[in-house]
């Protein structure tokens, strides 16, 4: 599809393990909101249509909101509920 942009998606914990890799590239239309990245992941990673409860997002290593628009070369991180400590 022409006009699409490439965005890197960082995966952690059970998402990373389900994907078998710690990052994927997805192609989306320019301006697609961060929160729509989920639906572009392979079904094997998502394991369902809905994003997991409590999922948060970072864009280029800073926290962001699901409505933030994506640009070419952006890196989105999908952040499941954390459990450090």
């Amino acid at each position: 599809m022409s006009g699409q942009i490439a965005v890197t998606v960082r995966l952690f914990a059970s998402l990373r393990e389900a994907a078998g890799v710690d990052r994927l590239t997805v192609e989306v239309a320019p301006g697609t909101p961060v929160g729509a990245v989920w639906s572009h992941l392979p079904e094997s990673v998502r394991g369902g249509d809905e994003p997991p409860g409590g999922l948060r997002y970072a864009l280029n290593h800073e926290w962001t909101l699901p409505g933030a628009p994506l640009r070419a070369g952006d890196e989105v991180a999908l952040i499941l509920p954390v459990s450090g400590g």
Partner: protein
Amino acid sequence: MIQLTHEPIDAAAVAAAVEDPEHGGAVVFIGTTRREAADREVVALEYEAYEELAVRELEAIAEEVRARFGAAVAIVHRLGRVEAGEPSVVVAASTPHRPAAFAACRFGIDELKERVPIWKRTVHADGDATWVDGRDAATVRGGGPA
């Protein structure tokens, strides 16, 4: 001293990092892998971080601790495999007087657990491993990264 590390944590070194001749009280929290969770024996935890953001969040928490409590603060979190009984995280805070040191240290570990992008996987004696990340079907049989 604000760090993620794959090496064992030296709690004494973290405590030493907050020494200050004007500070009469230091409080150190040491979080250790417990040998049991949900009634199953745990042999280790494996920690994974989104390192770029985790370091930023730790720095931000440290700055908040300094500003709110006038404290010197140090935070070290371990990544990778941590055997049961070993520390996974150490938070140290010192202040001129002791009540603020308790509050500062408590704030630091509470915020860390709330918002720093680090996840643990519980490794059981039979090799089963379970991610603690809010997803139900996160049990994976055997192995996994060290």
